[in-house]
């Protein structure tokens, strides 16, 4: 139950959104996040979006991984 899964906002209707994760659609309360937009990635936990996922940070971590990959290949 404690799992939170990354999901993408598909539609927003007031404080409720439909989000998609792994091909399924779930309802998510948006009461805890500000400026949610369709297309944003959020963490879905027990029916609520608990945080936006920062694409910038995600991309940077991946870049770090890649750099590490390269430096280790050298």
């Amino acid at each position, binding site marked *: 139950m*404690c799992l939170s899964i990354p999901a993408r906002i598909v539609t927003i209707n007031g404080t409720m959104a439909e989000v998609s994760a792994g091909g399924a659609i779930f309802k998510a309360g948006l*009461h*805890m*996040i500000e400026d949610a937009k369709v297309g944003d990635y959020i963490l879905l936990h*027990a*029916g609520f979006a*608990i945080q936006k996922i920062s694409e910038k*940070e*995600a991309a940077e971590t991946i870049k770090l991984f890649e750099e590490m990959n390269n430096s280790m290949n050298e």
Partner: protein
Amino acid sequence: MKYIDEYRNKDLIMKLADQIGKSVRRDYTFMEVCGGHTAAIHRFGIPSLLPGNVKLVSGPGCPVCVTGTDFIDKAIAYSKMDEVIICTFGDLLRVPGSTSSLEKERAAGADIRIVLSGLEALEIARIDSDKKVIFLGIGFETTAPGTAVTIKLAEKNYIKNFFLLSAHKVMPPAMEAIIKEGVNLDGFICPGHVATITGSKAFNFIPEKYNLSSVITGFEPADILQSILMLIQQVNRNTHIVEIQYNRAVNVNGNTVAQRHLSEVFEPCDAQWRGFGVISSSGLRLRRVFERFNIENNIPVQISFQEDNELCICGEILRGLKTPDDCTLFADICIPENPSGACMVSNEGSCNTYYRYRLTK
């Protein structure tokens, strides 16, 4: 899903494992406190990628597992009352109470419904307005803000037949209890989703007061391996700080909106943890202004105290002192379909995870 494949990339995982192998200089023991991490660690076979001198132990971070038998017994007592609907997350159904479980009561006719969120329970209360709807609130800082929002909506929409039985808890006091108990640890794989709400600052006491390393960790294999590497490096450098590996979802201050909901509705209280007993200021109870939603105020119940199954060592497992292999009932008498203890019930419980990924491989 975007950003999952990258964190499950096999090459990358092998390289992280290799890097860990090259970095070890001594024995290391790290505790993952979050049940989600325990499950991910075994699901992705992380221990098999680690050198023998890096040991991972599980902690008290499965909300179902730490929920005391008394809570289950209370929920069962309410479920037997007329005109009551119990709404619960599915994981609680099979947790053994002292004489029964919610699942058994449901089979015997009690109106017990599985919901995915407090909002669903609130909707049931709106529809079945002549019944008392009791939502079983369990979970840590990740889950409790959702319950807070639900309570505020119940108030705003004058839903008078919605009630809460709260076993919500907060994580840092339990981590402190573990440290004080003297479990031999070099650092913590800190709970990533709790930290999305609390921010990394909630864990600063770990290095500051106790000189232990901490890395706030995501849930994909590369996240976990990278965090273990960061922990090893901290220990090697003899520096102890809170680092955020899971920075796509966690920052220093956390989700302040969620924190506000939480503190408007709840206040800290002492709480009972399976295996630990009472930990001071580790629970969440409704503030006075919301007290009318507390079912225990409306209908007090008496339950008679009963000892848990004395062979079940869940309590010691949750405190990082033992592993499921040490339990004589494990996999023999105690199995997920018929659990003797709480740690075998939830997907995030140590015994359940061991059973699924270690034995059935």
